[in-house]
């Protein structure tokens, strides 16, 4: 999320620091996920994980429009949201490995990382499962008049869950400050979304009277512009919004989903990766706009790589929780 200094120039549109930071944030997510895949491949990570690679512009574009106090809810594919909202990779990796130093003391794992300090109400392994939680956070914000906004991230697969429509209705009736962000990465697991999604996605939200927009989810500036508008509107009390972000998942549904050709072609993947990559595109724009040069970009990458390496090493070395932990935190 943005810091006070980043946002000082919001009036005139974000300044160059802001966009360099956005670049860095996207790269952090990409390289975080690279490490996750590596941990999986090296059999160091228990269970599975769902990588966010390819979708970085959404989490970053949105979260840079939020303050630390704003809330987000996330999904099984949640590492990107978590990082973008301000979490640190060392405690995330520790969580992924089930270590006590993790955000949830190792009890949550990849699909349940939550971070109290950055307003991350948690990843969620139930498709659509967090839509009520985000709406409730917005309800609190309105009730407590604290000016916060809640963002609910979900994949287009969650359009199949009735809960979404129940919450859209309530949020609009009560004018709650919540933004529903649909990340359409074209696939529900191993099935193309067109086989599971009838009609028009935006029309579904608009039918409830909810302000609805669609944006190129690979373009961090476009996402951020839309987010700024919708967030400010929600903060001002004008009610919820729905933002459809079109994007693509670079890798398998989860780590280990390697043989994908029965459900999508390598060519399709290649096209997205080579012509629509959010990080490449943003980097190119920064250079063109004179915000950063190739050397600066390389320096960022080196820094981020080092950061991720340190974070992974920390997590790998960290101890597991002791057996006494198992019965702790069932009740508050």
């Amino acid at each position, binding site marked *: 999320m943005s810091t006070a200094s980043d946002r000082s120039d919001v009036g005139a549109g974000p300044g160059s620091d802001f966009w360099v930071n956005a670049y860095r944030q996207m790269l952090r997510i990409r390289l975080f996920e690279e490490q996750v895949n590596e941990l999986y491949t090296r059999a160091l990570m228990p269970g599975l994980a769902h990588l966010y690679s390819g979708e970085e512009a959404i989490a970053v574009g949105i979260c840079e429009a939020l303050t630390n106090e704003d*809330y987000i*809810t996330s999904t099984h594919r949640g590492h990107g949201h978590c990082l973008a909202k301000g979490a640190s990779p060392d405690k995330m990796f520790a969580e992924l490995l089930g270590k006590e130093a*993790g*955000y*949830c*003391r*190792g*009890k*949550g794992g990849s699909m*349940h990382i*939550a*971070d*109290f300090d950055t307003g991350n*109400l*948690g990843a*969620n392994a*139930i498709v659509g*499962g*967090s*839509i*009520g*939680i*985000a*709406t*409730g*956070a*917005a*309800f*609190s*914000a309105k*009730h*407590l008049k604290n000016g916060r906004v*809640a963002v609910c991230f979900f994949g287009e697969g969650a359009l199949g869950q*009735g*809960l979404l429509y*129940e*919450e859209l*209705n*309530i949020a609009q*009736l*009560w004018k709650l400050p919540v933004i529903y962000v649909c990340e359409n990465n074209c696939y529900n697991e191993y099935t193309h979304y067109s086989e599971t999604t009838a009609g028009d996605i935006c029309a579904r939200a608009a039918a409830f009277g909810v302000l609805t927009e669609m944006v190129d989810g690979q373009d961090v500036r476009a996402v951020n512009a839309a987010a700024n508008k919708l967030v400010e509107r929600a903060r001002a009390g004008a009610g919820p919004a729905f933002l459809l972000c079109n994007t693509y998942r670079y890798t398998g549904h989860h780590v280990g989903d390697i043989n994908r050709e029965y459900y999508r072609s390598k060519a399709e993947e290649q096209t997205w990766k080579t012509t629509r990559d959010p990080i490449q595109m943003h980097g190119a724009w920064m250079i063109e706009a004179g915000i950063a040069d190739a050397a600066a970009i390389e320096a960022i990458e080196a820094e981020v790589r080092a950061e991720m390496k340190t974070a992974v090493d920390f997590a790998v070395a960290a101890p597991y929780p002791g057996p006494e932990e198992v019965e*702790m*935190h*069932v*009740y*508050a």
Partner: protein
Amino acid sequence: MPDAIKRELTFAQAVREALAEEMRRDTRVCILGEDVAEAGTPFKVLSGLVEEFGTERVLDTPISEAGFTGLAVGAAMTGLRPVVDIMFGDFLTLTMDQMVNQAAKIHYMSGGKWKVPMVLRTTLGATRRSAAQHSQSLHAWLCHVPGLKVVIPSTPYDAKGLLKTAIRDENPVIFFEDKMMHHKLKGPVPAEEYTIPLGVADIKRVGTDITLVGTSSMVQVALGAADLLAEIGISAEVVDPRTLWPLDEKTLIESAKKTSRAIVIDEGYHRYGVTAELASVIAEGAFYSLDGPVLRMGAMHIPIPFSPPLEDLTVATPRTVFEAARKLCGKR
């Protein structure tokens, strides 16, 4: 309960008073449900609350049980203390994902960071001629889920004291009200503030020959049976666990050890329900003191029929409990 309380309230009045007091004490408490405001619910349990607290704190929702329950989970995480009203316990089916996969697990999954201080009030009980989809007592399901607490009061006094505690609890609490008791059962309730801790059973009648463990509506049934048993010289002790989770095992076991015989009576379906757990606890804990098997009397293991003469067969009565107890005590 202190002796000689003059003031009598119905069960519904006691519930309403608990809510009103807690709402006065703590502005974070709000009520969400269908027709809870001006209508005061179809059972008229909440009448008057919207007049005192306004529609910002007593909110009529759409008919979206999953939706507003999920909203309450998020609201509870972010600073409110919502009390959700699920009109008929049968509609819990629609809230299970939000209660079980979300509310119950968030504290644990987040390693103790997020809390979900909410109450879900709902009903149980048959013999209202409401047929199979409006007569169930599904509390066993919630008891089976770690992370939830389950309260099941049998008197106006207990209802008020336990509901106040439930609202102040930091965890999701399900509060079951027998819908036949709302207006039919009256009892002493002091005007002074009091609360009752969760996890403390109450001996509703002291006896020596047999222990009758009853829950909710079945406490009155057990007391009725105890009267009948007294007539034939059998002294029955009636134990009311009051909360099923946490469960006051000790009081149940001690009573059975003392009397050497026990029958457990509950209005949930007979098999795989509450009677099984309570009977197991007693059978294990009092094993060496028991003179006969612990018997169970749940609702007949069938969908509740509409037809009055059939419906009346499905639930234990003072007479059927009396017969079972008499036999268990070896009397004709």
